[in-house]
């Protein structure tokens, strides 16, 4: 944070409206069946889960007061917080938890989160306050998965039973949750209005109203921000570095910077014999100057990725092999792999020059720039790279799913739990699965399985540190960077507490001191 720290004299006060911005429209108000950011952002204020995550992304109790794993990690018992009420006044009970699970796994409910509960054998209510979950085998994500939004059985049961959850009024016009804010109004394409929930179990939120304005253009949102038409947005690197440093802006807004939840990489189709040779991948890693990439593409607003985990989180280790920019090493490795330079300066092996197509998705400017830098840097090695930006759907369907690509510049989002089984495990290389690059390494498989089936964090740390060492050495893809997330929040809003969990966690504790309140009507 590089702005004024709220002074001690500013006492918390109720009132005011927080005007937030969303780039996309809301797709539904039941988070269980949505996968877009806008819906989840709004849903996170209306609904709550059994657990939540604190500033450092550690699980803490939300609707569950406490929880306990059995020794073999297969039984998880939640003790629910007494006295929690739905927004319509009905009590929240263990039956609602059972119902939420039944809803997610119901085949007629279009939820993308079903597979997260594949190992759950049963969920039972033991009286109104105790929930017992039994897993068929130990599952590391057991706890974090219960951060999912709890759904009201008394309102939704009928619709779920009849297989038409999408038609329930809770899905669009009257959602009912247990979260800090209640739903007031939704105008499609225009705004969503929430009001504070006076009965929220952690106390009534200070800010009385949240209005989410839907503004599809990021440039327009930025102009609105400058004119104080919205109170918060995520800046682009350019906006952060070049367009928001003037004094008036710095006075009106608090800017933040923290590593985001996604990394960008250059990946190779490992079925291609040229890329199956680890020395070639390592040579490319040496030849791609990550500093130049981060400087050129993100104006320095990124952290170097040494593997698929975010720097600063409990699972991350930097004690792995790194690949600082070194053309000589790159040349040596390629020579070892049998590639020699011909008279034209091109790299050849068995009479065939080294050239490949680098695909990325159209409309993502950062990735296009990365592709250009990679192209220039590999040209110095004598490798010809052709860049081909493709529309996302076409790229995915015609090239990635069919494994008809040579190399790609893409990114992976990472979750709160370090389990990345679906991305790296050799069993996940089918056409609809996510190990696009067809990576297979028994050592990695073993570590992924071990990390996934333990519920003891100190054990898991060991597996994931090893995993990062193996990945850094074997280098299935060239990890580039974690882009920084660059949120701004109006400075009249106090109590923003940034951390690895971003700035939004516990936003119900934000407040505007009385003299600074802006929207006082109503």
């Amino acid at each position, binding site marked *: 944070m590089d702005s004024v720290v709220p002074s001690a004299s500013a006492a918390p006060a109720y009132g005011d*409206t927080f*005007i937030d911005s969303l780039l*996309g*429209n809301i*797709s*539904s*108000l*039941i988070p269980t*069946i*949505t*996968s*877009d*950011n806008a*819906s989840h952002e709004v849903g996170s204020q209306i609904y709550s889960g059994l657990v939540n995550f604190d500033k450092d992304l550690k699980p803490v109790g939300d609707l569950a007061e406490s929880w306990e794993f059995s020794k073999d990690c297969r039984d998880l018992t939640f003790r629910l917080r007494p006295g929690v009420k739905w927004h319509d006044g009905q009590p929240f009970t263990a039956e609602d938890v059972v119902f939420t699970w039944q809803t997610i796994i119901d*085949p*007629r*409910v*279009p*939820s*993308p989160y*079903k597979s*997260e509960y594949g190992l759950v054998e049963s969920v039972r209510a033991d009286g109104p306050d105790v929930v017992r979950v039994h897993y068929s085998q130990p599952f590391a994500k057991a706890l974090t998965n219960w951060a999912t939004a709890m759904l009201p059985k008394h309102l939704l049961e009928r619709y779920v039973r009849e297989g038409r959850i*999408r*038609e329930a009024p809770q*899905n*669009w016009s009257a959602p009912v949750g247990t979260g800090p804010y209640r739903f007031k109004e939704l105008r*499609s*394409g*225009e705004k969503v209005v929430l009001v504070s929930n006076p009965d929220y179990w952690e106390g009534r939120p200070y800010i009385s109203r949240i*209005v989410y*304005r*839907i503004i*599809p*253009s990021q*440039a*327009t949102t930025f*102009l*609105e921000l*400058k*004119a104080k*038409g919205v109170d918060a947005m995520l800046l682009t690197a350019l906006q952060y570095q070049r367009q928001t440093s003037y004094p008036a802006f710095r006075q009106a807004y608090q800017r933040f910077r923290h590593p985001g939840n996604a990394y960008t990489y250059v990946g190779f189709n490992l079925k291609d014999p040229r890329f199956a040779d680890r020395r070639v991948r390592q040579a490319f890693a040496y030849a791609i100057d990550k500093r130049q990439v981060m400087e050129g593409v993100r104006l320095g607003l990124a952290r170097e990725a040494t593997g698929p985990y975010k720097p600063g989180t409990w699972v991350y280790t930097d004690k792995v092999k790194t690949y600082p920019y070194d053309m000589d090493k790159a040349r040596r490795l390629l020579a070892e792999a049998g590639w020699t330079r011909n008279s034209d300066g091109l790299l050849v092996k068995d009479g065939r020059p080294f050239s490949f197509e680098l695909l990325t998705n159209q409309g993502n400017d950062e990735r296009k720039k990365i592709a250009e830098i990679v192209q220039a840097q590999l040209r110095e090695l004598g490798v010809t790279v052709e860049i081909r930006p493709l*529309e*996302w*759907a*076409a790229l*995915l*369907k*015609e090239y990635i799913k069919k494994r008809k690509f040579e190399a790609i510049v893409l*990114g*992976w*989002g990472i*979750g709160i739990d370090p389990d*990345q089984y*679906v*991305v790296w495990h050799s069993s996940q290389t089918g056409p*609809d699965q*996510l190990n696009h690059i067809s990576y297979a390494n028994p050592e990695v498989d073993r570590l992924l399985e071990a990390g996934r089936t333990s519920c003891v964090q100190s054990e898991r740390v060991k597996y994931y540190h090893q995993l990062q060492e193996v990945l850094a050495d074997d280098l299935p893809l060239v990890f580039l960077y974690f882009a920084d997330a660059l949120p701004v929040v109006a400075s009249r809003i106090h109590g923003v507490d940034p951390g690895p969990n971003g700035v939004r966690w516990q936003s119900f504790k934000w407040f505007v001191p009385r003299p600074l309140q802006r*929207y006082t*009507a*109503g």
Partner: protein
Amino acid sequence: MFAIPLLLGITFISFMVIHLAPGDPVEIISGEGIPIDLKPLQDFYKLYGLDQPLHVQYWNWLKRIVRLDFGQSFAPHGRPVIHMIRERLPVTLALNVIEMLIMVALAVPVGVTSATRQYSTFDKSTTVFVFVGFATPDFWLAVMLQILLGVHLGWLPISGLRLPVWEYLPFWQQQWDFLSHLILPITVATFGGLAGYSRYMRQSMLEVIRQDYVQSARAKGLPESVVIGKHALRNAMLPIVTVLGLSVPGLIGGSVIIETIFALPGMGQLMVQAVFERDYPVIMGNLVIVASLTLFANLVADLSYGLIDPRIRVGRRGRA
């Protein structure tokens, strides 16, 4: 009656074309690079017949549409398409009708004046204006006006339809707030169109005033204002009516650029989002409405020729 096979053709071709675009509503979801499991969603959408051959899907769609059943959106909210269109249409329609009225109100006098005073200073300066108007991309003009009038001067709101706290304003402020939000988008939308329409008007007027009957009107001693305003103008309006009729799809379909830059919840935004999400029922519903209204508008344009120009009579004795 001729409109029905035409409409069928339009919907058939559109249906095929939108399904040619790669990806389906489920695959599109994985766009953010978050590792999620799409299998359950794929199973769910099989219920909608997405795994059936295209002609079967089209036939099923057609069977529903003849009963005026537009179906439900594929998005997780699953709302009826007709509701989604009903809430978007008024914004787009209001915006475009106002824009068109202003445009015609300005373009006709400007065009007529520059035609009757050909090569005058006024004509020359409007010519310059027209070229500037043609050459200015509306997204650029929009952003410039937003920065100048919205950010620096703070006179007008930058985007949206009304203030986020509109409900709490007094009645007259509500009306002003609503109007002030429309000023920028309407200005930008009018600017580009005005250039074109005033040119059409000028050209068409120039042709008409050289005709014999205009000369004879002058010869019988009518004042110039009546000659131009009554005799010449009516005939000169014909091409404008045609062009206006042709611009009806945009009137209903909305302008994607304007609606996106100014964050207006209109039909253009709805359509674009539906295309990105491969929300076929919404795309098709939109197309049917726009196509039918366009055909209807063309009919109205044809009929109004008769009103403006008595020489044209429609459909006498069944030959048309």
